[in-house]
């Protein structure tokens, strides 16, 4: 590559400043990472790079005359945040505005630049500086003066940009118009898909909020049983009274364990709504307590898990519905994995249940 003298001088300046650029890259990555964590934002990707000498030389060869000095090139250091959804780009940009000093004259929202009948590169580019209030290193004062580029785009926008870059730049010949048209069609399709993903996410979040509020308001019969609703229901601590009563058999304590494994068990037991679980609690809590009393009284065991309440409720329901020992074995196998011992345990519980006239 043959560069003119002016471009060669810019390249020399680049070599001198390379350690500062590398330092900037590390600082920017760290600042962005902390900002995302503090705001509980999950992103699909966060990356930063310093432009390679080859890439800079290529840029200078094409349009070196535009730049008076290296400082006029604002993307020597670049960072990129890739969001999952397109509507998250605006959230990220708002955070970036708070975090960095933005050079608005050189920042571009490519999303707003496309004509209504055009599809293609959609991304938000901010040219920024690291404010001294945010990070300062007295040994590297240039760190707060040099500008860098921050790109923000969704995952699908990133896919399109990468593919377009690969196809467009690797090709030695000009791409024929029909292939360009195909790329544009793909851009339109991805833009639509991006919008749909955001829409679906909003709908699901809306559904979750509605269901959570139905659970909180006690409209249990209207709430279908699924993983989300069961989790919300558990927050109401529906089995606490029974668990406390069982623990009190030996003046003991309740250890809080995870009840989510019971979600699938309850589904298999034909529970359709949260209301079905509430009915099971109301109808069978006393029998479940009696069964636990028979097992724990006199043992001195003064610690039980929270799940022991649901376990005994399930046992009672199985026995009341007439599924017998086989039903109990299926329950234990589903909870703990298949084990020959479960037959003995089922038989013992079955006999205990007969003793207290449960069956």
């Amino acid at each position, binding site marked *: 590559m043959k560069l003119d003298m002016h471009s060669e001088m810019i390249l020399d300046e680049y070599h001198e400043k390379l350690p500062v650029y590398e330092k900037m890259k590390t600082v920017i990555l760290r600042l962005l990472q902390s900002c995302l964590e503090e705001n509980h934002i999950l992103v699909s990707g966060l990356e930063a790079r310093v432009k390679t000498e080859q890439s800079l030389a290529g840029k200078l060869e094409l349009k070196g005359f535009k730049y008076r000095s290296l400082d006029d090139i604002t993307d020597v250091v670049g960072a990129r945040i890739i969001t999952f959804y397109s509507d998250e780009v605006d959230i990220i940009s708002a955070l970036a505005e708070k975090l960095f000093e933005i050079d608005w004259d050189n920042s571009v929202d490519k999303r707003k630049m496309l004509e209504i009948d055009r599809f293609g590169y959609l991304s938000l580019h901010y040219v920024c500086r690291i404010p001294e209030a945010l990070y300062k290193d007295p040994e590297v004062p240039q760190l707060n003066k040099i500008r860098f580029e921050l790109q923000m785009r969704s995952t699908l926008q990133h896919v399109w940009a990468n593919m377009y870059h690969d196809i467009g730049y690797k090709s030695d010949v000009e791409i024929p118009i029909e292939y360009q048209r195909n790329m544009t069609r793909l851009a339109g399709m991805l833009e639509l898909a991006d919008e749909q993903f955001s829409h679906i996410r909003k709908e699901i979040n809306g559904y979750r909020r509605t269901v959570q509020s139905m659970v909180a308001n006690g409209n249990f019969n209207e709430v279908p049983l699924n993983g989300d609703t069961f989790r919300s229901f558990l927050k109401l601590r529906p089995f606490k009274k029974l668990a406390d009563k069982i623990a009190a058999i030996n003046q003991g304590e309740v250890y809080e364990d995870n009840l989510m494994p019971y979600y699938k068990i309850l589904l298999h037991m034909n529970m359709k709504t949260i209301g079905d679980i509430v009915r099971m609690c109301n109808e069978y809590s006393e029998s479940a307590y009696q069964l636990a009393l028979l097992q724990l009284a006199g043992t001195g*065991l*003064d610690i039980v898990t929270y799940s022991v309440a649901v376990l005994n409720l399930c046992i009672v329901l199985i026995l009341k519905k007439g599924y017998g020992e086989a039903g109990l074995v299926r329950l234990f196998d589903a909870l*703990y994995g298949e084990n020959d011992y479960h037959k003995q345990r089922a038989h013992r519980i079955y006999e205990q249940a007969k003793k207290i006239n449960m069956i």
Partner: protein
Amino acid sequence: MDITINKLEQKTYVVLDGRVDSTNADQFQKDVAPLMEGENLDIDIDCTNMTYTSSQGLRVFLLLQKSLMSRNGKMVLRNMNPRVKEVFDITGFSNIITIV
């Protein structure tokens, strides 16, 4: 109660013999304390000759389990006799501890 602890490559093998109750639970906790730190992340406990555990014993198993979970480790209790298994079942501990 007797306890034997052996480390073989990445795995720690523990053999329990006898009963864990109020008379020896403190000692049991001291014996397993080294397993609650360091690189003991995969613990296999043979309960073939364990004859009983009281709630004090259950609490030690719970401490060990919590310590391992916080370090992304795992613990398995195996060959438990039906009497000991019953203690884990009726207290609900079978829901939190892996027994094979």
